[in-house]
């Protein structure tokens, strides 16, 4: 990016500088990034590779290294979207309104473990968890309660459910919207629908095998976008965040995400669609972790890798369809229960990474999240943290302010190279469902978190208050408790629904779903009908289990 003659001069001066300060004292620590990229003392123009217009270029044009929009936050600041859900749909609705009144600009539904796993609250195995880790969304009535008085035609809603339950939960949402009089063709929002979240991020409870999950994820993409039923919806959000939290590093996070995204595109292309028909609606969700500059380099590298992949691999001509748009969540696993107030600082720094990296949407964690679900007070501080950045710091004045930093550009290149190599490693195993069913991704995850754990035990990865300047884990933080009556409320909700619905008609629809599953046709049309008639998420998922069988993930200690 510099004139050869001038570079030569810099090189000479640099050698001189190196020699002069060869013995300058440095602390006896390893200067590496979180993903173990060795970091030099200093970066100079000598570390810049390639040329500006090919590699960095301007924002709003490929390869989008500097951002997907020409004006970025000068045009519109990122969406402040807090992942939120607890107790019952009514209580979650109350929290959503509270955050909205305080300036939140997008909603995101955190569902409970039963909703994730397609288990009705009448099942004793999961009953104690109704509403404890998110909002229970078991039937269409719950969706009405969740969104009551929420302007879902103006504010986007993220439904965080994965392929096993994305069809029934989202069908319930779309039916609810139709019944409220909205045209679902105009609805805006996102379904997470991420195959890796409920397989390697968390272990699935009585779900189906990865090849079926991949098919379900692609059915949903197909029905919403190329079939144009809900064309403005983001039908999938490749959620590197969830497995990053499990212990992998920034390079692995991006590689998992891209390998997965390519498998979905391949699946839809095999069905006869063109990649151009839907790739512009694919969305991403990344972590903002502890390594400040590596995370910023990661977001910049991600945009460039995606734009290049879309062009080289899928020959996508429309530049708009090569944009990498992403939501960020600050790192829950970086928080400690011992130093809850310090978590506010940690979260603020991570939020700044996401903003300096050009995210489209952001969730900031609450300071009490190492202990319990967020209290209202803690959630408000998390929202205010984003508002301090957007309203007070003036970082939004210009686009991609760190571009041109010798270090940032070098690190962006370095992350990009390593991600591309790791994608190859995954793709050697096969498509993403194979990488799961063979156990490959489980082994990669396990090795990563055992390595990280060893670093923490040895004090190489520092958690203030835990392995450095330890503090007791005390009872000073108020614990937010979810509603203990949620089980009864949800059991009653389903009971009422079952009394009201036409069970004979529903049985016929469920039989049709059995047929569709056996024939491997798109499940969405029949699930739209069945959930409208009152089918529960558990009833739909039980048919998947019946037809395809239950899958045990290949975990190894």
């Amino acid at each position, binding site marked *: 990016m510099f004139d050869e003659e001038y570079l030569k001069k810099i090189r000479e001066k640099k050698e001189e500088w190196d020699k002069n300060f060869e013995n300058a004292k440095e602390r006896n620590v390893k200067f590496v990034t979180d993903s173990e990229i060795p970091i030099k003392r200093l970066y100079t123009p000598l570390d810049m590779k390639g040329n500006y217009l090919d590699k960095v270029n301007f924002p709003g044009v490929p390869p989008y290294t500097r951002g997907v929009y020409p004006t970025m936050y000068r045009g519109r600041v990122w969406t402040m979207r807090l992942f939120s859900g607890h107790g019952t749909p009514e209580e979650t609705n109350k929290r959503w309104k509270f955050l909205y009144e305080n300036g939140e600009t997008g909603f995101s539904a955190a569902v409970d*473990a*039963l909703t*994730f*796993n397609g*288990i009705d609250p009448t099942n*004793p*195995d*999961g009953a*104690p*968890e109704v509403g*404890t*880790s998110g909002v229970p969304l078991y039937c269409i009535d719950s969706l009405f309660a969740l969104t009551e008085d929420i302007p879902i035609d103006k504010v986007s809603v993220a439904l965080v459910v994965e392929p096993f339950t994305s069809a029934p939960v989202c069908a319930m949402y779309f039916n609810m919207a139709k019944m409220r009089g909205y045209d679902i063709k105009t609805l805006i929002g996102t379904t997470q629908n991420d195959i890796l979240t*409920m397989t390697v*991020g*968390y*272990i*699935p*409870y*009585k779900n189906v095998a990865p090849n079926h999950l991949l098919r379900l994820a692609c059915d949903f993409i197909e029905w919403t976008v190329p079939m144009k039923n809900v064309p403005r919806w983001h039908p999938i959000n490749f959620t590197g965040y969830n497995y990053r939290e*499990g*212990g992998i590093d920034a390079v692995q996070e991006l590689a998992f995400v891209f390998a997965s995204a390519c498998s979905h595109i391949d699946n839809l292309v095999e069905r006869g669609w063109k990649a151009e028909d839907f790739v512009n609606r694919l969305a991403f969700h990344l972590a903002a972790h502890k390594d400040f500059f590596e995370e910023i380099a990661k977001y910049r590298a991600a945009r460039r890798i995606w734009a290049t992949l879309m062009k080289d691999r899928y020959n996508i001509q429309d530049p708009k369809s090569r944009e990498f748009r992403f939501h960020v969540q600050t790192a829950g696993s970086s928080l*400690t*229960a*011992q130093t809850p107030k310090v978590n506010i600082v940690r979260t603020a720094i991570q939020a700044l990474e996401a903003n300096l990296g050009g995210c489209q949407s952001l969730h900031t964690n609450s300071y009490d999240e*190492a*202990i*319990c*679900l967020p209290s209202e007070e803690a959630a408000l501080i998390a929202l205010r943290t984003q508002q301090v950045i957007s309203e007070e710091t003036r970082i939004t004045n210009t686009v991609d302010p760190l571009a041109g930093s010798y270090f940032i550009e070098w690190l962006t290149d370095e992350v990009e190279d390593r991600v591309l190599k790791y994608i190859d490693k995954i793709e050697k195993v096969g498509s993403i469902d194979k990488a799961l069913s063979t156990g490959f991704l489980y082994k990669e995850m*396990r090795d990563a*978190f*055992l390595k990280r*754990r060893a670093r*923490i*035990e040895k004090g190489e990865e520092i*958690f203030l*208050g*835990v*392995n450095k300047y330890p503090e007791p*884990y*005390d*009872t000073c*933080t108020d*614990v937010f408790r*979810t509603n203990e009556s949620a089980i009864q409320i949800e059991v009653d909700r389903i009971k009422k629904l079952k009394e009201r619905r036409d069970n004979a008609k529903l049985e016929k629809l469920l039989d049709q779903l059995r047929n569709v599953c056996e024939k491997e046709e798109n499940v969405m049309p029949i699930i739209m009908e069945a959930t409208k008639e009152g089918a529960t998420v558990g009833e739909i998922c039980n048919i998947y289990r019946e037809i395809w069988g239950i899958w045990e993930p290949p*975990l190894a*200690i």
Partner: protein
Amino acid sequence: MSDKKIRVLMSKPGIDGHWRGGIVVSRALRDAGMEIIFGGFQNVKEIVESAIHEDVDVIGLSIHSGAHLAYTQQVIDLLKERGVLNDILILVGGVIPAQDFPKLKDIGVANVFGPGSMVSDIVEFIKERINK
């Protein structure tokens, strides 16, 4: 001290899928020479049955769902009913508020390892309490 190994059942009651903690601890206990029976997801009945069947010294319950009080109480009630509660050391780990530690200990849990625990402390605690 005999050369018989300490036997540990590591179980996840319920349906919440946060799996990392259970594996990290299992691995550390195995590396410390213990025998691990990794139960994975188990309902209360399955936990108690496999604890008895496998003749374990320790049950580790890994719970991140917020439902730790309900599940632990159910496991302890059933162990009591089967007459084996006093033979087995019960440990609970996961995202457990400090306020709940005394509640869990009152119902019969030997120790609770909350967020930020070091696995070396868990190994040490088990070795101290089980003399084999």
